[in-house]
């Protein structure tokens, strides 16, 4: 089937605003377009508006302004039960008074499917999440991970084109969570359904998604595939929010195409890549990923700016070493180095020189 325009913009938020009290906007001018089959994650701190967006999409909240479309049709006036969207809730919302099979059969029943068809679909959905033998149990008799699978199966059993998931893994322990992340993406891709996934866990967002929308303050700060988000954050919020990050503040001294010189508040000058700064004199936050910091001076180009750093703490973490340094007056500068045979282990109290490639150092808004 050839992709159509509607397929490229299967789910669309068009200038959507939302206010609960008529005074402040929780969602400010949201524009988003999702192609069919995409796994999109809405990531952001609590109160950033991501869950509100999900609820507007599901129909449990109405947009104060703007249009939400699915498959090209505005759904603003369609009640939730007619939207045909599958949904997985934070605490699974499995009906405690029904068995697992009854839970799964519920969406089929309200769609008035015949009994045999219902049973077949329920069994298929249970098998899909490897819970085929649990149909007769009550939700309370299942573990958290099992409940999670049932919730997923229930959201999918009536074959919706769009599935929403609201922090579905929040209640699971780390190991289960990682396993379920994999399961969910596998199933979503196998079925080819479009998924909107809300989380505040960046690892989850990065590992599962085709694209991630980073929310803050009612806006999407950046919408990009995980690698781009990590490597090329568009602003300091995203840089801070995604992954670990070293931030230094200063003023743009000069700017020249793909390079700029930044005078740090402590006086040193470093090279950086301007991202959203435009002219000298502007304040900036430069961000450098800990694993991109070079502690071996010989590997840097001779003309690269370097900074003096005092080793404060060395933490052995198995696969990597994590070293905390005092740099440019800050004591929270982190360097991550790979645990390789030739890797030096920095001793606290020693002073070294550090540097980086200018393109790894992004000068962002202050």
């Amino acid at each position, binding site marked *: 089937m050839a992709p159509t325009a509607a397929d490229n913009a299967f789910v669309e938020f068009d200038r959507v605003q939302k206010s609960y009290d008529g005074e402040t906007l929780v969602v400010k001018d949201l524009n988003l377009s999702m192609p069919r089959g995409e796994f999109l994650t809405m990531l952001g701190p609590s109160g950033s508006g991501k869950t509100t967006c999900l609820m507007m999409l599901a129909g449990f909240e109405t947009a104060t302004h703007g249009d939400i479309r699915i498959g090209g049709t505005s759904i603003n006036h369609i009640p939730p*039960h007619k939207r045909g969207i599958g*949904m997985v809730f934070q605490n699974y919302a499995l009906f405690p008074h029904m068995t697992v099979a009854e839970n799964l059969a519920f969406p089929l029943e*309200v769609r008035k499917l015949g009994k045999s068809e219902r049973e077949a679909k329920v069994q298929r959905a249970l098998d899909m999440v490897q819970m085929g033998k649990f149909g007769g149990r009550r939700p309370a008799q299942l573990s958290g991970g099992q409940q999670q699978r049932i919730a997923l199966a229930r959201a999918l059993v009536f074959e919706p084109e769009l599935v929403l998931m609201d922090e579905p893994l929040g209640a699971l322990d780390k190991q289960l969570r990682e396993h379920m992340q994999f399961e969910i993406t596998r199933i979503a891709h196998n079925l080819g359904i479009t998924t909107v996934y809300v989380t505040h866990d960046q690892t989850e967002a990065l590992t599962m998604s085709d694209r991630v929308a980073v929310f803050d303050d009612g806006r999407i700060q950046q919408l990009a595939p995980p690698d781009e988000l990590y490597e090329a954050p568009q602003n300091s919020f995203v840089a801070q929010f995604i992954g670990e990050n070293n931030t230094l503040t200063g003023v743009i001294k000069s700017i020249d195409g793909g390079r700029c010189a930044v005078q740090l508040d402590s006086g040193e000058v470093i090279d950086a890549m301007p991202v959203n700064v435009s002219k000298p004199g502007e304040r900036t936050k430069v961000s450098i990923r800990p694993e991109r910091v070079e502690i071996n001076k010989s590997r840097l180009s001779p003309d690269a700016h370097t900074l003096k750093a005092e080793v404060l703490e060395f933490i052995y973490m198995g696969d990597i070493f994590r070293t905390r340094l005092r740099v440019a007056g800050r004591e929270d500068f982190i360097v991550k180095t790979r645990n390789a045979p030739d890797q030096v282990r920095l001793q606290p109290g020693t002073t070294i020189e550090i540097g980086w490639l200018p393109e790894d150092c992004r000068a962002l808004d202050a």
Partner: protein
Amino acid sequence: MTDTTSQSGPMLAADGTPLKKSLHRAQRRQKVRALMLIAPLLLFILVTFIAPIFDMLLRSVENDIVPDTLPRTVVALQDWDNASGEAPDEETFRAFYTDFALAEEQKAHTRLGSRLNFEMSGISSVFRSTGRDVGKFDTDYYTDQFVDADEVYEDPVQWSEWMADDGVASALPQTADAYAGWVKVLNEEGDDPLDEDIPDFVYTALYHDLAAGANPPVLPSVDVSGWDDISLKEQFIDSNEDWADPDIWATIKAFSGPYTAGYFANSIDLQSTPEGFAQRDEDERIYIKLFIRTMVMSLAITGMCILLGYPIAYLLSHLPARKANLLMILVLLPFWTSLLVRTSAWKVLLQNQGVINDILVWIGIVSDDNRLALINNANGTIIAMTHILLPFMILPLFSVMKTINPSYVRAAKSMGANDWTAFWRVYFPNSVPGIGAGSILVFILSIGYYITPELVGGVDGVFISNRIAYHISSSLNWGLAAALGSILLVLVLGLYYVYDRVVGIDNVKLGG
């Protein structure tokens, strides 16, 4: 580790005592502590709840008063055939004379009269009037005769010595028995038998012993052969002619045991007849009817409370806390107003010339001649009780609804259920424990209510509890009240059992 597992004997704790024993000791200490923690409550419940219930159950069958007050009569009546159509023989009356005279000393005869009056109208005044006469029976003749024969017969100290003599006591069984009964009564009253005149009935017993040919040692001999034989039967019948009525004696005989099923029989509209228990005449049956009415109306009240309380509880549980609290105060308002204020308010509202009828007439829904009867009947009881008990429905409903995750309904809707289906299939079943708890509360409370039905229930809006209250506070027929109460208790327990079977008692939550 390997040491202990390879051991063949019991596992040992570090100090060498068997592990089980030391575990047991440690647990026992915990158990004792737990017991001490609940001891005050346990004691409280025992004293204020369990004990009264046992007392009630006991009272519903207890009949000590008859055999205790008339011990000699009860024995004598065993040989009397109540189908004979005649009052018992002289011998029974002699026993009865001793019993009655002793009872009169203690003022117990009127109490017994009231007790038996529950079984047969009229006994009360028979006992009371004879109580006045029994001291004035002609039996003082014997007293005079004995004293005339020998003055020592007047001396209480002498009597006391005689009666302490085993030979005398066995030779004069009736006298010894009457004297012992008299001494017992005096001791209970705190009087000294050595200071009091020997009563007529003891001399009468002495006469009857001697007339029967007794030959006691010690006592100065008296020849009684020429004396008048005074018939006690006649004495009693002279005092009150009803003593000749075999029905009185049949009643005493029927209720002569220490326990009786009479109260329970009465509670289910049976009456005792010579042939056993039989149903009362139709126009005298009342209790079964009241039990049924109590159950039916309590169910109706419970139903009304569910209908009215459910939407309010739903609203309350979905409002923000501040508004919910305000509304909750309104819900609890009935608790804060005195019963009298509430009752007058209902009257003003509900009576024929009341506000509601006036409004209905004014609007034209009801014509002036056909004003609705909303009070002083079953309607009044249902309206008023629903009002009072509504909070008991709303509170558990509210607290259960509070715990229903709002995402259940959302989940249902996301799966395609419309508002009604989502409510009925998902929300409602989860609120059933609240309905269960509220219903049990309301139902049990309404079964026990009697003041409100009394005030607004008129004739067909009163409950069995009103009768119980009447028998407790007015007729003092506590045995019947206890029997009615016991039946009510059994009915409630029975309903509880049915509820457990049908709905499941696990399905009751007061919240959380």
